[in-house]
């Protein structure tokens, strides 16, 4: 039995210039170079990408969905952040 397992990496792919990198999935690889090569073979076999990022999964800090209340609720009652909150006379154009 091998003593060490290859670590897990998260793969982000930009499908074409002008678009953001999007999370595509994950894979195991010994190091970053191998993770990039594997990501190319696993996630871009049909020209799905023009750029790839790989990040070792352990370096990602994720928010906890159980705390979604404290985390995201504060934004919910701030309707004044949206244009529709402001009342304008109908005659006003282009605003």
């Amino acid at each position, binding site marked *: *039995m*091998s*003593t*060490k*397992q*290859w670590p*897990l990496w998260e793969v982000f792919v930009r499908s074409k210039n002008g678009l953001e990198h999007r999370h595509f*999935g*994950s*894979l*195991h690889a*010994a*190091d970053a170079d*191998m993770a990039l090569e594997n990501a190319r*073979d*696993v996630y871009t*076999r*049909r020209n799905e990408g023009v750029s790839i990022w790989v990040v070792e999964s352990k370096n990602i800090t*994720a928010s*906890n*969905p*159980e705390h979604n209340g404290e985390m995201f609720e504060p934004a919910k009652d701030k309707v004044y952040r949206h244009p529709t909150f402001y009342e304008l006379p109908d005659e006003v154009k282009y605003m």
Partner: protein
Amino acid sequence: MSEEQIRNLEKQFEERIARDEKIEPKDWMPEKYRQTHIRQMSQHAHSEVVGMLPEGNWITRAPSLRRKVALLAKVQDEAGHGLYLYSATETLGITREEMYEQLHTGKAKYSSIFNYPTVTWADMGAIGWLVDGAAIINQVPLCSTSFGPYARAMVRVCKEESFHQRQGYEIMIKLANGTPEQKEMAQDALNRWWWPSLMMLGPTDAESVHTEQSMKWKLKRKSNDELRQQFIDQTVPQADLIGLTIPDADLKWNEERGSYDFGEIDWDEFWQVVKGHGPMNKERMKARVGAWERGEWVRDAAMAHAEKKAERKEKEAV
């Protein structure tokens, strides 16, 4: 957590799924949901991986370069499908090693269809056409299943599958229009793969244990028998079109139902193969475990190399 609280959470959870919300890995989920998904998704991944073996058998003997690149690309896709699914399963808290261990020790199952041998080139045609065809019917509904990582993996898988089926059917067309020997070879492959392909869609509804729960969690949208009927209805005309005969004397168009009636499936054979007594069960596991063990020094070497490189980088930085 009290039982009352858990019941409450479960109720909210089921409601979320009923509203078509997706469940993501870090969300609270009932233990049974987690375990069922680990089981189904890892078995799905195993099937993709073991499924490479019967076709891998013919890559070096493909009759032309065109057929060879296509088959190679298809088998590579299946490796990809296995990888998408393994990593989606890992989000539920099981490691890749545990899953391999379950496969290699026979604790986890994979699709029984891959325990049949591939004895002629026509089998590559029959597998693409029928086995990938049946797989597509099984997989399309999973693109909208409730567990986010599974659904996303399936969207990618389904996009890739249609080429698999078409390349298989194209092989059958060519053979069916070839010499009498070639046509006979195509017919023989159809004869051998037809019934196992029907079995691939799972036991009859009367015998299927998980259906109700699976429907709720959107792991299933139609019953096995419905899927089987769909497969038969769409495949029979494809056989007719190229002059091959479905090996079922009872197959008959039923005007009233708007579907084909078909003969009895040999479920004893199905269960025998599931239990490990199919023609190739031992062979497949031997090949799979052998590949894993023979690859161990490569995995270790890659790790050692990565560590050395990291060390060197650190030294240079000092």
